[in-house]
């Protein structure tokens, strides 16, 4: 329907840092129904199980990573009345306090915005081909997948 256009679904994988105000602004399309934006930003923590982390490296599978996040956004848009959604995920070398990932969802009402945003993060953690390696005093360690992350994705089934 002309009055209910397809939501805008956008994925960016990049080494560059991002500007959260610019990203949130880009979700707003001047639609009269825009009432709610929920966002999530993930940061590099320095206190990890491997010890005090000095840096992190993020690797991805170019092509598949974008495609798999796009598929998650499509699922979210079929499940909730989303107006616009954007995911930015950084790759390469990052340092404690750096922004890693941003997810923003615009919707008419808050319930859909919150649910879709959390759903996207849960699936991104469980399905998007991205891998973290931590650099610390004890050396370089590939982060192990957590069973709780696949559990959190499954609870939406």
């Amino acid at each position, binding site marked *: 329907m002309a009055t209910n256009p397809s939501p805008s679904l956008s994925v960016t994988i990049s080494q560059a840092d991002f500007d959260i105000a610019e990203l949130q602004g880009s979700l707003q399309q001047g639609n009269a129904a825009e009432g709610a934006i929920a966002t999530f930003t993930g940061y590099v923590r320095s206190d990890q199980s491997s010890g005090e982390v000095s840096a992190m490296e993020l690797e*991805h*599978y170019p092509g*598949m990573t974008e495609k798999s996040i796009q598929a998650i956004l499509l699922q979210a848009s079929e499940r909730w009345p989303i107006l616009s959604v954007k995911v930015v995920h950084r790759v390469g070398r990052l340092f404690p306090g750096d922004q890693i990932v941003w997810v923003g969802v615009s919707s008419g009402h808050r319930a859909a915005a919150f649910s879709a945003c959390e759903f996207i993060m849960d699936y991104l953690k469980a399905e998007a081909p991205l891998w973290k390696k931590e650099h610390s005093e004890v050396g370089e360690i590939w982060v192990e997948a957590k069973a709780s992350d696949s559990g959190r994705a499954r609870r939406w089934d």
Partner: protein
Amino acid sequence: MLQVVFFARVKEELGCGRLELQWSEGSATVGALKEQLCQRENGAWRNVLSEDNLICAINHAVVDDAMAIADNDEVAFFPPVTGG
């Protein structure tokens, strides 16, 4: 030809990010390709590729060992994902 790609810890442990292989009957399923790869370097690859939680994707879609591989496919092997 098959493009075979490896990522993250798997790539690092194999010391290999990308291989080109001739498609053959012996690599016509994910399981068969894996067995063929396991024999490389006098079997040293078996330690890495026989891990239970190894994930395989064909042309960017996750598949299981029974999946057929066609000529010109891109086949990826990688560990469980840890992004976000």
